[in-house]
């Protein structure tokens, strides 16, 4: 149980690092996916180690995987539009709204 939680914490840490440091929008999307996967792993681990084991955790992860797939589709479409308009996907350079 503890080992699953430690793996999940490591995934979360890598994801937060990517979110805060990286400049490429696609890499930021990678980081978001890693964080979502850390949450999924926690859900399944806690549901499995309950006494008696519950299947609701797996149901929630089912929803979460579908939501993450949607988020990736919409995020990649947004990145495509941003690239078409600005010919860069460096998020530090996408500052047109700054006056």
């Amino acid at each position, binding site marked *: 149980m503890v080992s699953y939680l430690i793996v999940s914490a490591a995934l979360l840490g890598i994801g937060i690092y990517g979110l*805060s440091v990286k400049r490429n929008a696609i890499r930021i999307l990678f980081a978001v996916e890693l964080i979502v996967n850390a949450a999924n792993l926690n859900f399944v681990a806690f549901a499995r180690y309950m006494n008696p084991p519950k*299947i609701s955790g*797996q149901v929630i992860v089912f*929803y979460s*995987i579908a939501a*993450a*797939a949607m988020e990736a589709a919409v995020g990649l479409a947004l990145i495509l539009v941003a690239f078409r308009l600005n010919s860069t996907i460096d998020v530090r350079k996408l500052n047109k709204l700054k006056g």
Partner: protein
Amino acid sequence: MALQAKELIYGAISLAVSFIGIAGFFVSLDAPYLAMLQIAVYVGAVVVLILFTIMLVRRDEPDKDEAGETGEGAAGLWLAGLLAVSIAGIAALAGPNLPSTPPPANLPISQLGPVLAGVYPIPLIILALLLSGALLGALILAKVER
């Protein structure tokens, strides 16, 4: 690692490898259906979508990816490391209270369907509507105006 690879394509491939690893964790947690779903959705759909997007937005010049010069890189590393270590520490401290061996498994896959459609039908419907809406929205966003 998925985030540090020099070439973005290699990063996407290592992301796929880590998703397969998480699917392995799901198998070891007696959730084979979720492992199958993880491989089908993440490795099959999301990573392929990411690869297509990388090919569409590709540029030849190597762009600077780290925000290193302002010290943001080190700060982000410290933040993430501190967070991960503290969460892992809390988990390790709570370790004696957590069960170390799982209770015997009685989670057949056939139980998943009735729970999904019988106990939680409303979220399933909302999810279906949200999924079709999001995919239509992505299609409209990515459509080339002419």
